[in-house]
């Protein structure tokens, strides 16, 4: 009887392990740069009132990260910190407070603001906003965050349909936030033209590109570790 040859099996196992590792890291995050550290408490909001902020919120929930959310906060509301001044939702204005108030009592200043980028005329209409008004609001809160050293994270998970020609509604939302972000996270579909990569390079800020929104769960876990 011919003796079985073991080395090829070892090679095969190694190959499987290597491919598995490549697959895990390759698919979960085609990370271009190291994921930075962000601190709690965190506020999520929309830049352009597309529904993508809902995706961001679900990702945070899946990652077990407590957050506050407001679709159209202005400087005063961000300044009021955790709990968003006990404001209640009303038509065209939504707030949700999930931050752990035991760790971060009401009024604790936010350390991080996550902006979900993407313009929706329907969403802005529902909030009584025009593109100009939304852009001006974003400018104010971005300036406030920069001045108060609040980390700005720009997320674009809407793909190519939430992109457009220069000067289009979507690009204006991106222009209002992304160049001032401390960290940019995008799906590959959103960054086909490399616009986010260029913004990140220009400011030397980290950027992570992923295939699916699901991949952001692990990234957010690391981010807020």
């Amino acid at each position, binding site marked *: 009887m011919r003796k079985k040859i073991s080395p090829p099996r070892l090679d095969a196992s190694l190959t499987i392990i290597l491919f598995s590792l490549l697959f895990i890291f390759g698919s979960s995050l085609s990370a271009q740069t190291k994921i930075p550290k962000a601190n709690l408490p965190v506020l999520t909001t929309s830049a352009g009132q*597309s*529904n*993508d902020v*809902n*995706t961001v919120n*679900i*990702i945070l*929930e*899946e990652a077990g990260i407590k957050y506050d959310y407001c679709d159209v906060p202005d400087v005063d509301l961000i300044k009021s910190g955790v709990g968003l001044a006990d404001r209640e*939702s009303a*038509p065209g204005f939504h707030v949700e407070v999930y931050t752990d108030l035991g760790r971060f009592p009401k009024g604790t200043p936010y350390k991080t603001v996550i902006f979900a980028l993407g313009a929706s*005329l*329907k969403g802005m*209409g*529902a909030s009584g906003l025009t593109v100009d008004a939304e852009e001006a609001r974003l400018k104010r809160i971005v300036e406030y965050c920069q001045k108060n050293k609040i980390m700005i994270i720009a997320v674009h*998970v*809407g*793909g*190519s*349909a939430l992109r457009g020609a220069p000067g289009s509604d979507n690009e204006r939302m991106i222009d209002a936030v992304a160049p001032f972000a401390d960290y940019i996270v995008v*799906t590959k*579909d*959103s960054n086909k033209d490399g616009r986010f990569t260029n913004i990140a390079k220009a400011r030397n800020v980290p950027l992570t590109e992923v*295939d*699916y*929104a*699901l991949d952001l*769960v692990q990234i957010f876990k690391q981010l807020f570790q």
Partner: protein
Amino acid sequence: MNNKKLILGLCFLALMIFAVWLIPAGNRPSLDLTLSADSEANCTVIMVGKKASADGSTMATHTCDCGICDWTWRHVPAADHKPGETRKIYHINQYKTWPPEQGLKWDLYQQDFTGLEIPEVPHTYAYHHGMFGYINENQVAIGESTIGTHRKLVNNTPAAKFDITMLTLIAMERGRTAREAIKIMGSLAEKYGYGYNDDGEMLCVHDPNEVWVFEIMPVGPLWKPESGKPGAVWCAQRVPDDHVSVCPNESRIGEIDLKNPDYFMASPNVISFAVEQGLYDPKSGKPFNWKKAYSPAEGSARSTEGRRARLWRFFDLVAPSQRFSPETPNMDFPFSVKPDKLISVEDVMKLTRDRGQGTAFDRVKGIRGGPFLNPNYYGTTRTICDPRAEYTTITQCRGWLPNPIGGIVWIAFGVQDTSCYMPFYAGITAMPDSFRIGDHWVFNRESARWAFDYVDFHVQVAYSYGLEEVKKAQAKWEAEAVTRTKEIDEKAMNLYQESPAKSAEFLTGYCLNNAKNVIDAWWKLGDDLLVKFNHLKFYNIEKRQMDRSQPAYPEWWRKAIRIFDVIFEEGVK
């Protein structure tokens, strides 16, 4: 202001505050926990089974009520495809307008390629394409209504390759029956993911024999195709042949019986996904209920102050003998109802023009409509007729005729009450050029749609008077087209026996010619209304006279002004 008036005014204000305070908290509209379609409240679908209609046809409407959306139409011809060909899938946003100066919608949305190409079928069917696919050469027809779902189920990520719009186009290209169209859409959504621009959606899918309600939901933004799980959850229920139903942006499917495939179809995850998401507890002892799990919408016509009145209003209009109550929570309304009398296409046209007249939700009740009873001013009631309508379709499938002659989509541009339904047979090979043109932001006399907005705009000047002028035009152009249908059918049938191509040519000529005449008539009507009510007077065009007493301000309106002045204006006795 003297003391008497001050006291009167304070009493009036106190009464108002007391009245508002009296409304029980439970009856006040509350924010839904779901991502409801309420804020959009965009479309109404009316459905009629073949044994519920006066002529044996099945019918469905789509009131495309948006206010900022695209209204262009085209005909898509049938095509043969070689083995190995693929069909590109695009993201098509139903709320988007494509600037006409940049090109045509169907060319421009190709810029939003999803990256997905699916195997093409050997032959794709011809169909008429507006915002959605509406009717194909097999008499498979569709009407749409957004119904919303839980926020956590919404999937706006690029992982979801299919929007509802794209699904309807594929259904048109490939569907031979309503059932088949539903299965095609369902399986594609499961495999490639559903959502992106859309969330909870309802489609009425019908053919000459059956009318189905198809409802579909995304499965959340964390889905990816490699998961092996379906990228959508869907369910379909058939409307009994002798029943009618409606979808006013609210899910309509309740308990389901998948052991009865004649009446129910669903994706394999229909219950398991609800359990997984905590939307249904099998241990509750209650049967699974689709709408309660996936698209709950609280409130009744009354409790929402008419915001959700369309469901009750429809049932009350078609089956008044059953005395449906506006207090009944909408979720408790039946799926469908047998109408008190058989429904004709004219009845359906009338239903689409309903403004809730004479009900507690009448938008001109009291002084709301002003002196000329204009329902477009102030009011919380959402009626079936909606001033934001881009167009309304009535798809009609008639099984006793060959498919190209049996299928008709009646199209009315703009607001239903000031518009005119024009017939377009399933077998025609072109749509009017004027249907391909225009958007909301640039007035365009080459665009068919603007003719109807032009009339509607001038009706607003003195609504009750203007509408009478429109009704005369509708009687001439719309009612006559309905009456002529039998004659046109017969001519088309005679030609069809000789040559289907000749029949198609005849029908195309008839539909395009009729549409041109209607559009010309509406431009003329708009011009006449402008002249007639110029300066808010009444210029008699025929007699070349101006009647200063017209339009007459009613006595109750004068009294209402007087009452307001007495209460609020200083020095008025």
